[in-house]
């Protein structure tokens, strides 16, 4: 079966005008964004201590101020990151990624798959068709897993928020270790030769060879794509962000300095596994976890433990396992969870040791 998608060619002159208008709106938008962003610290203080009858220096005050400061800040950062990544993503499609990966050898394939997993637009509810599409196109199983691990693990929203709230070093560590886990876990799964633990119907699936004409996107289309991403993602995650900040604010105001250092500190060997055990059943998304991470670090938790906690919350989730169960036999799911969890443990210990 051969199918085609056709797209109308647009008028050139109209696009130039739209483009100029977009750039102008963008410039005004960035100026407004920056102006508001700069007054946030003062605004949150004023809201907390002048508008509300809260004593400066109290536990409650510290919590409320954290909440009023972080909520608009995180939302504004999220807006910028999602828009930017949306535009970047308009250059990639799962189809292009598959074509690119199907000819790659194992190790090199794992590296590219992990990198492409970060930027290829794909939602977890599409994991099954994507998995089938990759495997039937001859992408090795391990390489497919590198992609499936990197996609949720190295989350562009998390990366942007970590950069904005905790600086480039933490963001770079997160990116580097996330890629490392995706590449090595995929490679290990590939070496284990578990192809026969994929559900039988997958390999028998007679997937049609879909040939689609490449979409010709103008810059205007890409801006629209970015804008749609903002509406879609912000509409979905705002509640998680607010809940996450509320939890973070509670920790910030009421948990005494040093308590976290003993629970999630680097001196106790069990802090990393404990973080993973707590993190796996928790289901939140990256945007909601980061404010909690910020507050934990502020109270003396070690970076390795916090990183392990964050990664297990966003990379290993129960709903995803349920979806993947349709194409993977239980043993392969167990291997998948085991290998990824080991990678997270390794990263956690490594950073508690060297920092």
């Amino acid at each position: 079966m051969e199918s085609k998608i056709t797209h109308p060619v647009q008028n050139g002159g109209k696009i130039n005008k739209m483009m100029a208008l977009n750039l102008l709106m963008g410039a005004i938008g960035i100026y407004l964004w920056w102006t508001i962003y700069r007054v946030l610290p003062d605004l949150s203080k004023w809201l907390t201590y002048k508008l509300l009858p809260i004593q400066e220096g109290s536990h409650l005050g510290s919590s409320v101020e954290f909440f009023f400061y972080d909520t608009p800040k995180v939302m504004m950062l999220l807006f910028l990151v999602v828009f930017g990544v949306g535009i970047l993503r308009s250059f990639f499609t799962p189809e292009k990624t598959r074509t690119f990966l199907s000819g790659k050898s194992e190790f090199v394939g794992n590296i590219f798959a992990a990198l492409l997993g970060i930027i290829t637009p794909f939602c977890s509810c599409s994991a099954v068709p994507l998995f089938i599409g990759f495997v039937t196109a001859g992408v090795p199983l391990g390489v497919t897993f590198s992609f499936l691990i990197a996609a949720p693990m190295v989350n562009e929203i998390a990366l942007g928020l970590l950069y904005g709230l905790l600086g480039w070093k933490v963001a770079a560590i997160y990116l580097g270790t996330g890629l490392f886990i995706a590449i090595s876990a995929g490679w290990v799964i590939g070496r284990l030769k578990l192809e026969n633990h994929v559900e039988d119907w997958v390999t028998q699936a007679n997937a049609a060879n879909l040939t689609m004409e490449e979409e010709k996107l103008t810059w205007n289309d890409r801006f629209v794509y970015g804008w749609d991403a903002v509406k879609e993602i912000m509409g979905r995650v705002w509640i998680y962000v607010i809940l996450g900040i509320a939890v973070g604010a509670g920790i910030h105001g009421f948990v005494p300095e040093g308590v976290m250092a003993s629970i999630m500190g680097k001196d106790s060997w069990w802090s990393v596994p404990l973080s993973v055990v707590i993190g796996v059943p928790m289901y939140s998304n990256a945007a909601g976890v980061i404010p909690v991470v910020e507050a934990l670090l502020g109270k003396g938790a070690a970076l390795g433990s916090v990183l392990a906690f964050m990664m297990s919350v966003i990379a290993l989730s129960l709903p995803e396992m349920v979806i993947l169960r349709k194409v993977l036999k239980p043993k392969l799911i167990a291997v998948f969870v085991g290998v990824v969890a080991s990678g997270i443990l390794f990263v956690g210990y490594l950073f508690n040791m060297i920092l």
Partner: protein
Amino acid sequence: MEIKVLGPGCAKCKKTEKLVQEVIKEIGVDATVEKVSDMMQIASYGVFGTPSVIVDGEVKCTGKVPKKDDIKKWLLK
């Protein structure tokens, strides 16, 4: 006209189906809509992302909720 909406039943897929139904009513075209949620069937179309919309055997869009105007274009052809 035979329209198929492919999707395991996530929020986006339901929205797509609803949009297709709305457009059919608006423009009054004679069409049947079938929701395909069986993974094996979805895979057999060779699509990667869900939701996908198939009109008379032709894959019109994959991996996103289509715009109403786009759906109109597919149905009016």
